């Protein structure tokens, strides 16, 4: 009886896993098939047509190294959006880490007046919906000329990322012992050496996880980019959204696969760090 129950238990886990990856299976079939008509489950022909139409893979016959280079150098929309998404994500992540480091240190190690209020102010963008601030901000950005600019989009991405990075790194510093720094200083190390030899190695693992997820928050941002970018800054989520709305499943699937690739990569890389306790996960509600 107990054994039977165990077996049912395990089979239901497998079934759950299968159901969960159905969308992923559908993405791959759609992206690599040609004329996948309705009742078919397995497509009759496999095809790279969607990728050729997106100008990511050259036409048959031109699939040499030079063929790929020439095609990508012609700067197709997907490549442009990919480069924009990557640049914005990396820039915003680096800036937010640099800004968050001193703040998180102070919040994690010291006690002072108004600390609760400051944390409350920092947390609020993670709770209140982005639509509440971005509509008003959009009009302000138009009047000062930030709207439609790369800079404006980077700036607005800092809003969801900043609180997340500050809070995660505050958690890291709360478990950090600054006495080692004092010892290094007494032994004659200067401030820079102490930072790079003592502080950074201690906080690095947590910081890398925070940075990767901060990148993902920027990477998945649709509404903020759409409103502040004003159609002039094309990123991958914008491309996925517009392709999905226009209703071509093959193209949508192909772009989506590119779009989710870093997410899966980051999960593989961080799976041993990811746990509800690390604090890094709390930002996921926002992706």
């Amino acid at each position, binding site marked *: 009886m107990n054994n039977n129950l165990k077996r049912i238990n395990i089979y239901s886990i497998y079934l759950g896993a299968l159901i969960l990856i159905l969308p992923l299976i559908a993405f791959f079939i759609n992206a690599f098939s040609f004329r996948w008509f309705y009742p078919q489950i397995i497509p009759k022909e496999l095809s790279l047509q969607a990728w050729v139409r997106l100008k990511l893979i050259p036409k048959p016959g031109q699939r040499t190294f030079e063929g790929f280079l020439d095609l990508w150098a012609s700067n197709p929309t997907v490549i442009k959006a990919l480069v924009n998404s990557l640049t914005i994500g990396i820039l915003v992540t680096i800036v937010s880490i640099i800004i968050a480091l001193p703040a998180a240190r102070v919040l994690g190690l010291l006690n002072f007046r108004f600390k609760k209020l400051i944390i409350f102010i920092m947390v609020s963008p993670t709770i209140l919906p*982005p639509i509440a601030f971005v509509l008003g901000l959009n009009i*302000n950005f138009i009047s000062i000329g930030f709207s439609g600019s790369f800079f404006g989009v980077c700036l607005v991405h800092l809003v969801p990322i900043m609180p997340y990075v500050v809070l995660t790194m505050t958690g890291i510093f709360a478990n950090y012992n600054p006495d080692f720094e004092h010892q290094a200083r007494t032994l004659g190390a200067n401030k820079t050496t102490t930072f790079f030899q003592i502080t950074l190695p201690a906080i690095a693992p947590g910081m890398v996880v925070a940075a990767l997820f901060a990148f993902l928050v920027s*990477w998945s941002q649709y509404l903020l980019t759409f409103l502040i970018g004003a159609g002039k800054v094309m990123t991958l989520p914008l491309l996925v959204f517009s392709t999905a709305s226009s209703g071509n499943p093959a193209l949508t699937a192909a772009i989506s696969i590119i779009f989710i690739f870093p*997410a899966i990569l980051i*999960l593989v890389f961080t799976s041993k760090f990811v746990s509800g306790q690390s604090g890094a996960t*709390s930002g996921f509600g926002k992706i």
Partner: protein
Amino acid sequence: MGGERLKIILSLTPPLLIIITLFFGGIFYGFLQSLGYQPAIGKYELNFSAYYNVMFSERYAKLFWSGLALNLWVSFASTFLAAVFALFGALAIRKTFIGKTLCNFIYSLNLPMPHLVVAVGMIFVFSQSGLLARLAAQIGMISSPGDFPVLVKDKYGFGIILAYIWKEAAFFFIILMSVLQSLGENFEELAQSLGANRWQRFRYVILPLVMPNLFSASIIVFAFSFGAYEVPALLGVIYPQMLPVMAFEFFLNPDLNARSEGMALSIIIALIVMILVVFYFWLTQAKIRKD
């Protein structure tokens, strides 16, 4: 001591400046606009007519209240169901079995997945020509795509709920797994040795232990699903329409008067979320005081 104070101020100013100017500044300016302040078209007087129009005018009242009802239904249903599925998944997966690492990975897979992609995935799986409809046709359950129930772009928000369950169950799952791991199995074994059956161990041992974490994760999920735009924009219908989509469409309307109404809507959404969070903190504080 003065040096320390200066250090605190200098360290905290940059992130606070970003959040106060961009986030609170944006909300404040949106609020001003919702009161009818629009210098661009020469309107400077402040009043609540946009709020009144959105909620009670003949033109928008039906749209607004049906949207609010849909918002509440979608957020409650998806938060609750995602939490329940994740709880059963996390409890089941604790035991050792073949393929545990892989299953663990698959159950966490939707965690870093953008909501947008999950929404597209729902179209691919649940639409009338999607993967499930094809499966149903293969085994002869339906004869044409029209026989398959409308699960995405439906007026009950099923597609939106499905997308949020897909995505947020992974979030709940990760949080529950770490709580369960840190608890170990001692409590359960103790309860078992005292003669508690399966259900009793679940109801009186596990549930109370995971409840605080489950509840705070629910608040995050509820707040998110209440105010997010992408998923209902892709998987929703024109009527009834979820409030964030409605706010956004008012805002993009070339008629500048509609802009105030869009702002009013976004402020209303934020207010509802805020009231909910304050209520949650009041509830947890009251519980802490009681204990």
